[in-house]
């Protein structure tokens, strides 16, 4: 259960379902026969010790890796082999463990890049930068500015992202993912490398995204405090196998989880 206040988002039907998914690289089994679901409007945490297969799991949902066994059902459709841009069009957005921003571009351009799949003006108008092309630029700029306001990154719009401090880079990356107006947002360790203050900010943003935009969120996170506070439900992986699945309280008390973490649990 979430510890913070604010209007609760109705936990609805299943948005994404992972069924008996197995993935191996050569001889290494990254994920073995894992099943869980993510319900619309919830914040689902995926946790586990290092090497548990969490990032691989996100990569599978995203379409980067294709599982040897099992399937993913997203919005009622079974996806056999999905490519990342199909995932994008389907409404799945993502941030990465090591910030995957476009370093040669400004923060504004990075977030505008997130609007690409909503921009359709054709090549001819792009050549002239007039008419439909210009109108589209301006329209999408409005939406991007909303996101910039939301994340409070107005001052660094025109700064090349390679020069920004780590915490701000993570925020820009979140903004870029939000620009896609996703139904499902995958966050891979969004708090990694942050101090307490930055973590609080980021937690607030994650909650607000869930509240304000209604976005379903799946996040990988190591900080147990964050996980317990933010998430509605948690799934725990260890060595590629699911060892617990339920609300934060249920999971905290599970013996298997405590064993896996060997007393590291919060």
């Amino acid at each position: 259960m979430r510890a913070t206040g604010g209007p609760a988002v109705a936990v609805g039907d299943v948005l994404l379902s992972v069924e008996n998914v197995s993935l191996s690289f050569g001889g290494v089994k990254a994920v073995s026969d894992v099943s869980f679901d993510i319900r619309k409007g919830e914040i689902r945490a995926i946790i586990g010790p290092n090497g548990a297969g969490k990032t691989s799991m996100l990569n599978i949902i995203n379409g980067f890796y294709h599982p040897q066994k099992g399937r993913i059902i997203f919005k009622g459709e079974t996806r056999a082999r999905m490519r990342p841009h199909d995932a994008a069009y389907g409404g799945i957005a993502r941030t990465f463990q090591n910030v995957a921003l476009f370093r040669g571009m400004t923060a504004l351009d990075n977030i505008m890049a997130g609007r690409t799949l909503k921009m359709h003006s054709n090549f001819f108008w792009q050549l002239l930068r007039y008419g439909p092309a210009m109108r589209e630029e301006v329209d999408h700029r409005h939406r991007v500015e909303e996101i910039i306001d939301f994340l409070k990154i107005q001052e660094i719009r025109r700064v090349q992202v390679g020069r920004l401090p780590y915490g701000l880079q993570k925020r820009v990356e979140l903004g870029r993912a939000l620009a896609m107006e996703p139904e499902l947002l995958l966050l891979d360790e969004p708090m990694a490398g942050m101090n307490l203050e930055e973590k609080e900010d980021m937690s607030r943003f994650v909650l607000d995204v869930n509240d304000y935009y209604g976005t379903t969120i799946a996040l990988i996170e190591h900080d147990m405090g964050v996980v317990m506070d933010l998430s509605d439900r948690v799934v725990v992986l260890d060595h590629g196998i699911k060892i617990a699945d339920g609300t934060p309280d249920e999971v905290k008390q599970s013996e298997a989880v405590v064993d896996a973490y060997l007393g590291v649990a919060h």
Partner: protein
Amino acid sequence: MDILYRIFLDPFVQMGTAPDLFVQTLWEGMVGGVLYALIALGFVLIFKASGVFNFAQGIMVVFAALTLVGLYNAGMPAFLALGLTIAVMFALAFAVERIVLRPLINQPGIILFMATFGLTYFLIGFGEFVFGGDPKVMITEQLYLPKGTVTYKALGGIISLQKLDIAAAIIASIMVAGLAVFFSKTRIGRALRAVADSHEAALSVGISLEQIWVIVWFAAGLVALVTGIMWGARSDVSFALDVIALKALPVLILGGLTSIPGAIVGGLIIGVGEKLWEFYWGPLVGGGTDAWFAFVIALVFLLFRPQGLFGERIIERV
């Protein structure tokens, strides 16, 4: 119908009816291949040890040859010139490593690659400036390299092999064998392989990167010198050799950037392939196909097996 016959049947018929010509062409291809392989070998050595793709290796070959001839023409006895050239190559390698490569250590590979383009251009200009741009004759006699041909009557016709080519093949084989033994059996060779795998790991076990690089560049310089002598002996020494060096790139693609046997196999395949292709199929399209055959083969490999025959698979992790 006629076209199909000419493409798919006739060349093989020709090979069968004049087997002596076929073997002759095969031999010429192999000799060319050996020389490509030697140039590729220089690339592989440096890439293996430092991860740097030194496009300028081709120009090093030319430079070595020019220095040797230049020193001899200036009055030095042949073997003294040889020794001095080795020293010059060594100094050159050292200078390149200090001035060009060291400052670019942390840059993405493509930047280093482009820097070696600049280096190549610089050395072309510099070499022409110092030695003059006209073609020179390699001092084959003075180095006791054999001249003349050996003729066999075989397969219904005549096959003649240049003694120099035979010598080239033997020398190349010795060099490759020597390098292979060096890498697998000696302590330094093992250290080199360690460095190729991971710089940090090698450092952590006490291997001095600088020492290794110096040794590798020296070896590459030696290889460049031998290559330069052999090439120069077959055709005059001039900067057109550098165009030949571009052909080493397809060899590397075929063999794999990190494999010494790959460089040899790749070189032989390209050398033989392009000679045979040009001789038997070339006339159908007007000839001159050896300008692009190697690259088209490389393209095909890049599409289906980018790591080459012997190279390591490249996996991209997110």
